[in-house]
């Protein structure tokens, strides 16, 4: 139930960093994933496509990770710090005004992951694509 991440940089209309998640995202590894994305942001990556086609399971801590990743890619500190929450509310307000953030997008999500995202409503935060090729073409 380990989680493996593979990063690849692709030249689309803008430079896209594709991070493939393989395995299971849960309480044992979600913090490491946030750290990895923080490293990418620090290295200058600004558009992140999470390829979830190999992700077979996502626990609720995965939701915390996805939320934190959106904050990180918007140059914010992740949650539990003062700035994070208001920044997130600004993002969700934008979502409710139907202007979705595009810095972090998803592709290839399988049924078990889609179900968690839809049940909790966090799917509203993300533009989702069926697979990597169509995502890169759309970005």
């Amino acid at each position, binding site marked *: *139930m380990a989680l493996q991440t593979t990063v690849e940089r692709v030249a689309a209309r803008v430079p896209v960093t594709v991070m493939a998640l393989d395995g299971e995202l*849960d*309480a*044992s590894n979600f913090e490491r994933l946030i750290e990895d994305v923080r490293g990418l942001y620090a290295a200058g990556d600004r558009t992140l496509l999470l390829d979830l086609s190999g992700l077979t*399971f996502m*626990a*609720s*801590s995965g*939701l*915390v990770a996805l*939320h*934190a990743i959106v904050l990180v890619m918007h140059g914010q500190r*992740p*949650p*539990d*710090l*003062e700035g*994070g*929450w*208001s920044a*997130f*509310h600004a993002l*969700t*307000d934008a*979502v*409710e005004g139907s202007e979705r953030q595009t810095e972090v997008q998803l592709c290839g999500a399988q049924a078990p992951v889609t179900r968690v995202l839809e*049940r*909790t*409503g*966090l799917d*509203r935060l993300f533009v989702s694509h069926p697979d990597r090729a169509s995502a890169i073409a759309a970005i």
Partner: protein
Amino acid sequence: MTDPGAALDPERVERILASFAPARDRLQVAVIDTTGRPIGGSSASGPGDDPAREPKLVRDITCAGGIVGHVVASGPAIDDPAVVSALDAVAAGLGELAEADYRSLASELAQARLAQRSFVSLRAPAVPGYDLASHYEAAREIGGDFFELFTVQHPRRPVGVVIADVTGKGIGAGMLMAFARPVIHAALENSPGPAEALERTNRILVDEIRSGLFITAIAGVLDPATGRLRMANAGHEPPLIVPGDGGPIGAVEGGGVLLGAFRTLDAPELDVELRPGDTLVLYTDGVTDAVATSGERFGEPRLLTTIAAARGGSAHDIVAAVRDAVTVFRGSASPADDITIVAIGRRRP
């Protein structure tokens, strides 16, 4: 430690108040000792802003049988009974932690777990004609499950049902749970229905409490006389109904987003009838996400099979069957997440 008063650790007080970081224009909270000296919380940014100087609400913090300090608050948000209940919980929590310190428990983790245990409901009211059963098991790290079964203050004496799970882990999750539980309880007491109660809870979490964590929750109200059960679901695993007539076990689908993330939930009211012999089963993802040493997850199909094998018994039988199945499945692996199972069965006449 010989002085209970010294157990009110300033660093901890700051950390706990900071983890709620209330919106300062709506709610100012501080902790003072028995002489009125501030220990932590809102500092004065203007004469009217300092709750320690002009408190509108005072709650005692007790430790080892004595008062060791007070939680003081001011601001417009304290007119909300749900906020008041939550502040009660903060005072109680600080007292619990001080008490644990005073009794020299080894680690902070052990203390927080002790406090959390006391927040998780372990007593269910007696409801004629119904069986109420539950099982709660804490993870090795502090998780954020909580549930509650209580009699709502209303002439028809309905039963309030809440099950919830704070996403994330650690002391932050535990304290948010301690805060959210009385908020949901009070909202359920003071709202026309469970959907409004969760909407109201969400508003408090979004507007007043700036934590970075989310909560999934189901709130429900059962009228014991008719078996009518009104529920609302904020991003939680759907409730299961086990029909007494042998029909298929069904999930009650439909819900809104999880609590604390978006300004509105849009959770529809789920209206079901518990007929004699029917059982409602609620659970948290600690059940379905439980991992065996092989790496396999317990999963929903296994949960349904387990419940099906135990149906026909009481609510206690169903809860015990799920608890045992998860324990056996997990084997020597220690629980990575809190596990909560609640069942309400309507007896046959």
